[in-house]
């Protein structure tokens, strides 16, 4: 029994996600103590809905971070996808075609981000920040700053498949989120491409010498990040039937926070998609708990910052000691 427990502890300590999981459990416990409504099925399904919208972005951001790059344009790309989709279906374009065009546009932006970053050698943080400003500016000009709403009563099937309602307050976006986490985890941890991603982020020089095409890995990951960002925009359209040009402002930082809290290294080469997913649940849980308990929601950013620091400290102090003892 003792040996089994010791093995389980060693297994847990090896995982990047452990700190995030512990923090999540602690916050659930505190939030539930302060207001039992946190455990209601409606609250939990609401939490899943929020987590899916942030989390799908975090999946892409984490994947890219592990390969050693950042994308600060994910929020803007999500907003662009949402607005372009609504504009196209309002113009009577068939739903699936509008979906393909909107997602295609997002992926094209990912490709541009990747090409500029790789060819110019400029930091991806700056390149994608510039992309974000450009996209936001265009959206503000085109929309005049006002939201764009779907004119019909029921959205096309193409977007309802992505984010439509299910019984008990659940949404399809939560299911797609889980699927995305599962698929990307499999790719990252069980495929050769996943090894290449870790290698590219961990030590690109050595990776290149080992035969990894690091430029291609990064380019693919930039496109994937924008793809997942576009899904977030579409999840929101399925829920709100509208989008404003400032939609998903701050989502890039929330995505990075979720990834870091979930164990991804800012320096690349290290991280987990499951961790990023747990991180996004944690961030959504903070917002829900603040609202349920009546705490001032203006504290949200400070608390997320505090959790980031606490997670880093717990990892640096407590878990490092445990790893030294048991591993």
């Amino acid at each position, binding site marked *: 029994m003792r040996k089994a427990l010791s093995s389980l502890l060693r297994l847990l300590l090896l995982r990047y996600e452990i700190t995030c999981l512990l923090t999540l459990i602690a916050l659930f416990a*505190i*939030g539930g*103590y*302060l*207001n039992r*409504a946190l455990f*209601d099925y*409606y*609250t939990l399904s*609401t939490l899943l*809905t*929020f987590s899916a919208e942030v989390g799908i972005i975090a999946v892409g951001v984490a994947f890219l971070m592990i390969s050693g790059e950042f994308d600060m344009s994910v929020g803007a790309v999500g907003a662009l996808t949402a607005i372009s989709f609504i504009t196209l279906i309002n113009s009577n374009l068939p739903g699936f075609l509008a979906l393909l065009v909107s997602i295609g546009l997002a992926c094209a932006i990912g490709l541009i981000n990747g090409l500029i970053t790789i060819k110019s050698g400029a930091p991806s943080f700056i390149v994608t920040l510039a992309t974000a400003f450009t996209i936001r500016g265009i959206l503000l000009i085109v929309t*005049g*700053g*006002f*939201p764009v*709403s*779907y004119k019909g009563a029921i959205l096309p099937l193409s977007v309802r498949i992505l984010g439509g309602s299910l019984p008990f307050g659940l949404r399809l976006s939560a299911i797609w989120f889980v699927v995305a986490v599962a698929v990307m985890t499999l790719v990252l941890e069980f495929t050769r491409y996943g090894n290449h991603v870790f290698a590219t982020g961990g030590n690109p020089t050595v990776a290149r010498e080992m035969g990894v095409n690091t430029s291609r890995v990064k380019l693919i990951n930039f496109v994937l990040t924008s793809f997942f960002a576009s899904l977030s925009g579409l999840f*929101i359209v399925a*829920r*709100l*039937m*509208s989008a*404003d040009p*400032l*939609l*998903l*402002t701050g989502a890039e930082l929330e995505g990075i926070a979720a990834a870091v809290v979930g164990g991804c290294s800012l320096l690349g080469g290290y991280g987990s998609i499951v961790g990023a997913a747990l991180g996004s649940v944690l961030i959504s849980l903070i*917002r*829900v708990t*603040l*609202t*349920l*308990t*009546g*705490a*001032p*929601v*203006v504290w949200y950013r400070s608390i997320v910052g*505090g959790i980031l*620091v*606490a997670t880093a*400290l*717990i990892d*640096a*102090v*407590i878990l490092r000691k445990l790893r030294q003892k048991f591993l």
Partner: protein
Amino acid sequence: MRYLKLVSILALAFFLTLGLSFAPTTAFAQKKFVVYFIPHAGMADPFWATQIKMAKRVAALLPDLELRVTAPETYSIKKQLDYLMAAIAAKPDAIIITISDAKAMDKPLRKAIKEGILVIAINIEDYRPPDKRIPYITYIGMDERISGSVLAEETYNRFHEMFGRYPKRAVIGIHQPGLICLEMRSDGIMRVSKKLNIPVEKLDITMDPTKAMEILRAYLAKHPDTEVIFTLGPCGSHPAIKLIKELGAKGKIIHACIDLSPKILEAIKEGITLVAVSQQPAFQAAQSVYTAYLYLKYGIIPPKIIPTGPTVVTKENLSVILRQVKTTGGA
């Protein structure tokens, strides 16, 4: 290493204390009416900062009411909706909310009403046909159906007092064509103008102040008999006031507008703006909290609309409005 240990323990203790400090308001407190105030923008927006402060002031006077303000820092329908969904999960007694997107809010608000949560709309109502509207108990804010006509009537009557006749021509500068509340304001002005046989045109002046000035300038050059410029918000009012000053047309071209700002209040003092109509944001906030309280505690059912405007502001009552601005932060 020693410092890291200390800091991590302190950080953990801080967050535990933070969490537990809210326990008395939830787990152990005496039963209070819980009311959520959920506008579409928060303290970073001066208009909403005024409302939030006033809502909290009124709530502080009511010992058995707990007001919880949840709002995105800046305008965001998505974040407002997220807060709404979380608020509904808390099963409060009432929700006060701006209907910033009726379609998106329809389902969650109907769910809230079905669960017995009192819903009060504030500042923006559901403009859809009556059979589609969200069945909130009341709307507290400016009645946009009459704001334009009240502005026009007041302006034309004062013009008549000053000049012994009605204006030869008027123009309406609309800074966001298609925006339903602005269109309703404009319709009201056009209705009154038509009744008095005053030629009036609606002009898309855009939200860009430089463009707005140039468009109005070009219109005035083409129609030199224009004697009244109506604008429907500060976006249009500021360029109009600047243009009248630049042209030296004070007293020859009258400005009248909806919604206030410090520049507009200054223009009223200087005699450039003859009439302004206000929706009194502080009144909206105060009235909404008190209306919720009266219903929850005493079963007092409010009327379908409680208008906080159109309230006419002129040089005569400017000192009162300035007092409102000084004490509440806005008007």
